């Protein structure tokens, strides 16, 4: 029976490692890692798979937009330093309902700001093209859009109903396309 000297054994193991990388490179099983690590693994996979997901990206954008809308409750008179009125609770509520409708339509607003005319604006910016839906304190609703090479358009919406918001979004979406 032939025995390998320690130096020869090391060489043999190295050769085996190269021949069977999957066996020698095997990671510890999840059982060996323990339950806590397994949870981290799942979480990491979840985060990885959500990265680049349009649904998750849109949800995150709407979380931020709702935060922006909520902050408007704290906006006072003269917020623009030129005596602009504060947005009323009614205009903030109307913009919030419109935001829910827009979420259902997969629209992605760029931001929510107070209107200098007294109210709330949901803004859309795509490159140099711009549009907004404006919910005024007197309950009237207006749309506005402009883009290079296209004439500016502004109009009054009949109401802040779901149909009206959907129709407005369709109009804005078509206009914002390059």
């Amino acid at each position: 029976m032939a025995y390998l000297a320690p130096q020869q054994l090391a060489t043999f193991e190295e050769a085996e490692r190269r021949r069977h990388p999957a066996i020698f490179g095997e990671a510890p099983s999840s059982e060996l890692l323990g339950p806590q690590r397994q949870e981290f693994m799942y979480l990491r996979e979840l985060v990885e798979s959500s990265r680049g997901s349009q649904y998750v990206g849109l949800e995150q954008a709407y979380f931020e937009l709702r935060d922006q809308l909520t902050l408007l409750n704290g906006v006072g008179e003269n917020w623009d330093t030129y005596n602009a009125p504060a947005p009323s609770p009614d205009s903030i509520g109307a913009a919030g309902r419109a935001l829910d409708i827009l979420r259902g339509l997969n629209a992605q607003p760029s931001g929510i700001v107070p209107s200098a005319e007294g109210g709330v604006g949901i803004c859309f910016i795509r490159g140099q093209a711009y549009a907004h839906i404006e919910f005024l304190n007197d309950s009237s609703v207006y749309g506005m859009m402009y883009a290079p090479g296209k004439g500016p358009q502004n109009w009054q919406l009949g109401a802040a109903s779901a149909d009206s918001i959907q129709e407005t979004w369709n109009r804005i979406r078509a206009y914002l396309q390059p």
Partner: protein
Amino acid sequence: MPIYSLDNAAYTQRVHANGRPPDQQFDPADRLFRRYPKKYLINGMPVPIAMQALQFDQNSGMSVNWSRYSEPQDVLEPDCCEGNHRHDCVVLAFAVSEVPPEVATVDEIDGAFRFLPKHSPRIACHAHSEIWCNRSGDIGQPFERPPKHVRDEFRSRLAVPIQARTPLSFEPVAD
């Protein structure tokens, strides 16, 4: 006491009226400056909905500072802000030639509102001016508040050159 300029004779001579009379000789290349709240920039850009457009007072236009008598940062000074500090604002700039000269009305034949700058100096802020509006286009005639669709078209047309430039930010000067 200025915040964004050194407190010296040059500032006082530039910003305060010092007995100077109103001057209505605007050059098309002259610039007009206006404050804008920093926190309502979207992607670093001002949006027209947050810009005042001749809608509040029945008898006054849109306030601006005129570059003939003002540096951009002067519009942030307490002298030009009724004594208030405006650390939370950036400065928007546009040329006199970029102010839409008129906007047609939709409900009148050949009806239009005309817009032009009017120097309205204040004792502590000689550069203070207004974008005046009426049907005649005569700054000597009373201000007329245009209807909503005219205001919206005005601000959408004015927003284009404003958005093409980066808003100006200023830090207080060290004493």
